[in-house]
């Protein structure tokens, strides 16, 4: 099979994974090295697919042969999709070629499980090793790890990769048991714990090394311990393939963030796949629900919201018509209006339309003077959204101001059940 065809099949097979970030690794570049590549903190989206999703990494599967039969997955053993398998050097050459064109930040490699978890993991690690050691590639590498792979392989993966991830796949244990009976949820958790311990240990060690001055006058340098997944770990869960509600999904995420210090939880709206399993009726993916989950996730990570307080609706689902912050404000009308000149940061962060940066600016400004309503315009925040919830000099929301209506009848959401 020629490379074009393999690439087509194995990119097709990888497009359902939502992870894309290429940020947060240790800064490095290729000056003085033998190869190419750099990472400078923030990742770069080099292109966008017509589905609006960013392309920053070459995202492919090493092979889409898989011996597991997870119902939601296009690569499951019982699916009739065409199969292909890359050789290690083919993925390496593709990565280098796309990188030289400046089309990508690096590689995101995943694989169907063939023969055994260790056999599969070994191939995945070998691609990363070749890139790093044979080609001195200093771009970003994200490897999907196989939960049951041996400790030694995971340690090697972490040495070459910037980020490691293990997908939890379904938000609940029951969901996983129902749709992916061959996957072991507690093995997934144990692997995440194992990654977290290694990441923590490596950071701790790096902090402990004492810089030594080699020559008089030279800057003290320290032999750094070998890195282990410096950009941390992430995971993905599929949304909408079972009946789990948003409240449960956010609780799962909060647990994952708290227990394993994940950098990101990605939500992937379950999407029609070619040759779908009979057990999963197909509908258009719940894209708006996925979007609201990302917004809610953001509230937990940057705005100090607890996972229990985000979903107010009795049915446990996020409102689709307004964003979760606005929904929270509407459900807690007694906490508003908030005085822009006096409210503490935590409360300013809860005002719909005010972002973290805008809040910082407001706090800074009010140290030297009073904040007026027209300051909001210059802050580039959506004043119409903010004004009903705040008091500032020259502004007080009128009673019964036009606020978005409280929760409407739930629209007929694309639901599988």
């Amino acid at each position: 099979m020629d490379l074009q065809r393999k690439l087509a099949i194995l990119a097709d097979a990888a497009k359902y994974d939502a992870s894309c970030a290429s940020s947060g690794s240790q800064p490095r570049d290729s000056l003085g090295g033998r190869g190419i590549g750099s990472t400078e903190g923030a990742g770069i989206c080099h292109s966008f697919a017509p589905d609006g999703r960013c392309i920053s990494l070459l995202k492919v599967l090493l092979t889409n042969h898989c011996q597991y039969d997870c119902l939601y997955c296009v690569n499951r053993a019982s699916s009739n999709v065409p199969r292909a398998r890359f050789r290690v050097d083919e993925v390496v050459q593709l990565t280098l070629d796309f990188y030289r064109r400046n089309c990508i930040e690096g590689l995101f490699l995943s694989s169907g499980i063939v023969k055994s978890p260790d056999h599969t993991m070994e191939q995945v690690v070998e691609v990363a090793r070749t890139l790093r050691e044979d080609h001195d590639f200093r771009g970003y590498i994200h490897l999907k790890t196989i939960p049951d792979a041996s400790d030694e392989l995971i340690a090697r993966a972490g040495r070459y990769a910037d980020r490691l991830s293990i997908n939890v796949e379904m938000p609940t244990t029951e969901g996983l048991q129902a749709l992916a009976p061959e996957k072991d949820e507690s093995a997934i958790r144990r692997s995440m714990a194992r990654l977290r311990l290694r990441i923590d240990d490596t950071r701790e060690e790096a902090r402990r090394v004492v810089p030594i001055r080699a020559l008089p006058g030279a800057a003290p340098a320290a032999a750094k311990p070998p890195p282990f997944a410096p950009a941390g770990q992430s995971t993905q869960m599929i949304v909408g393939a079972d009946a789990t509600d948003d409240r449960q999904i956010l609780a799962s995420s909060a647990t994952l963030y708290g227990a394993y210090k994940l950098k990101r939880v990605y939500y992937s709206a379950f999407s029609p796949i070619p040759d779908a399993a009979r057990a999963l009726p197909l509908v258009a993916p719940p894209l708006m629900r996925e979007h609201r989950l990302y917004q809610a996730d953001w509230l937990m990570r940057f705005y100090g919201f607890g996972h229990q307080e985000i979903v107010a609706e009795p049915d446990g689902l996020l409102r689709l018509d307004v964003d979760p912050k606005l929904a929270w404000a509407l459900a807690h009308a007694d906490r508003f209006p908030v005085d822009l000149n006096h409210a503490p940061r935590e409360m300013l962060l809860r005002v719909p339309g005010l972002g973290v940066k805008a809040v910082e600016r407001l706090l800074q400004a009010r140290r030297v003077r009073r904040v007026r309503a027209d300051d909001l315009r210059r802050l580039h925040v959506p004043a119409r959204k903010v004004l009903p919830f705040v008091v500032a000099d020259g502004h007080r929301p009128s009673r019964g101001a036009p606020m978005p209506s409280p929760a409407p009848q739930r629209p007929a959401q694309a639901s599988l059940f």
Partner: protein
Amino acid sequence: MHVRLDDPVDLDAFRRHARQLLAAGVPPDRVEWNAAQAAGDAADLFGAASDAAPPAALASAAQHQPVPAWFVELCGDVILHRDSQRFALLYRLLWRLSHEPALRHDPLDADLMQARQMAKAVHRDIHKMRAFVRFTRVQGDDGLERHVAWFEPEHRIVEANAPFFSRRFAQMRWAILTPERCVEWNGQALAFQGGADRREKPPPDAGEQLWLTYYEHIFNPARLKLAMMRREMPRRYWHNLPEAALIQPLAEAAAARSQSMIEAPPTAPRRIRAPVALHLRPAAGVAPASLGELRAAAHACRDCPIGALATQAVCGEGPLGATHMLVGEQPGDQEDLAGRPFVGPAGQLLDRAMAQLGWARDAVYLANAVKHFKYELRGKRRIHKTAGQREAEACAHWLDSEISLVRPQGLVALGATAARTLLGRPVAVQTERGAWLHERGDGRPVFVTLHPSALLRLPYPEQGEAFGRWLADLALARGTLSAAIAA
């Protein structure tokens, strides 16, 4: 006053002029700034020679005016903006910063906001250039391979952005051509030249088809979202992105493709391999025959609500037939992650105590009364919560199994939860500590003392003394076991 700058992005020249004007007390509305369209473009478009430098009298009056460091940085960004009013704006800001002390603390000032917006636009352009430059491989006349790109930036960012590409593509010979400025990297140094013509854009090379194949297949037709795409990848960049030619055909076919997936009749599933053995749940109610079986069974246990949230069950460790089994309360955060008992702060305190007594850790069997970690999420941290009585009772049979497998001669209960589980009644640790008690049906004596985490919770001044007493307890438990068994 008319100031002319020969280079549109020369920050130093602007600073020199501005400093002199400020020192001479020339207010912003009296200065008119002009700049060449591109560096080296010195031919004066305005005919008459301009007073490129202020009069000598002004220059000599120049004094250093301290401005905040962030302002200098802001100037560096804003000067790259294409807006012809940028110098006037920056000088006005400089003037106001030195005349209005409050300004530097007001992030909402209109001039400052405008400058920040311009800096932001420049940053965005820099970022988009990093993203959307596409190199094509060309064979040079000298036989050397080069990677060449054609790009049309919005602002004058080529010089500022070039070092990024040299850091990234250090071992590649490359050039980026733009209408105003071109830059070339020969593997050692950057060289800049005037602008190029669009016709110099290199033709596609043979390898480009792979990239197009990838682009076409990473797109999921069931998720078409063109508006989102356009926001991140505005149309103005499309004509220089090879993959952009695919957008329209992909978008047009998307609805039909996803509809046909939905409507496709299910095909007969095929099996390419035998199903993988499932992860079996150990049968309920059967006593495990080995520590390995015990571990596997406890992992799967959901007899109380704690099990579902923890990472794994943490069973004990140590030799079969150890004389002493030390029993703690339940695993904590670190134990939960590592799957081993007594590895967190309390475990380290226990290690210290045992080391002082010359008691090897692997001579005893260390276990917990409750096998899963119970916690409460607070923000992004898991805070330990003591297991309730019901949970401890539900869990007790695992410890019983462990005891019958390990067959220790005596049991040391660390803390109230362990004591209650082992003795089957509430225990006041402070009053009953320090002696072997004989109350268990299986005849094994139980020695009660504190849990190490109780010591960690004490205020610092009391810790030393409490540790001494605890050490004495442990020493007693170790030394008097044979007497206790005889009793």
